[in-house]
């Protein structure tokens, strides 16, 4: 049975390749049909805001790539409630269907996975 992987993405979307490179690990794993989940934590939740304009920074559309996750079989998507709140992000207006977790939910999530990478 395949080992499951939790990817924790903590980088803001336009702070360098971190957000994109975390996503690439998820997409590659999905392409191999591995059981994967992604958690957006700390500045990682900033990837989830709507109406971003990456073209202003001559960057590729991260939102579109995040939205491709379910197509690659990665449907277990989570965000830290507190991280959203601290950053003034409206949890009702996100660009991705994520389950919101409090601290108890976060530790329980981490426990369930065989592998974890926190980028």
């Amino acid at each position, binding site marked *: 049975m395949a080992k499951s992987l939790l990817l*924790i993405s*903590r980088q803001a979307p336009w702070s360098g390749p971190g957000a994109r490179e975390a996503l690439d690990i998820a997409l590659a794993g999905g392409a191999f049909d591995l059981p994967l989940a992604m958690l957006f934590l*700390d500045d990682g939740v900033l990837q989830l805001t709507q109406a971003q304009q990456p073209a202003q920074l001559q960057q590729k559309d991260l939102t579109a790539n995040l939205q491709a996750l379910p197509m690659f079989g990665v449907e277990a998507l989570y965000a830290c409630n507190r991280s959203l709140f601290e950053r003034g992000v409206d949890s009702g207006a996100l660009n991705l269907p994520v389950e919101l977790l409090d*601290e108890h939910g976060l530790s329980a999530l*981490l*426990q369930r996975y065989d592998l974890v990478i*926190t*980028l």
Partner: protein
Amino acid sequence: MNTLHLLSHSPFTDSRLSSCLRLLSIHDGILLSGDAVYALQAGTAQRQALELMPDGIALFALEEDLLARAIGDVPARVRCLDYPAFVELTLRYAKVNSWL
């Protein structure tokens, strides 16, 4: 499945330690390496937070990093490790989560 958390950033300018503390489960472990050993600096809120963690959470530090930074006075609960001990420690936890 318990997790060994590996930290390597200074806790004063960085949120990794505080985020890690919020995600911990009761039998997890924390290994401080690199600048994360500064969390053991006497008189800091970070050291206090680590000392207040439940007993079930084991606390480790990479010895070379403590010595390099002249951090001599560490809480009794901290186990200091060399690399062979670090390797064996990773086998005592189901997985290792490095806060990159």
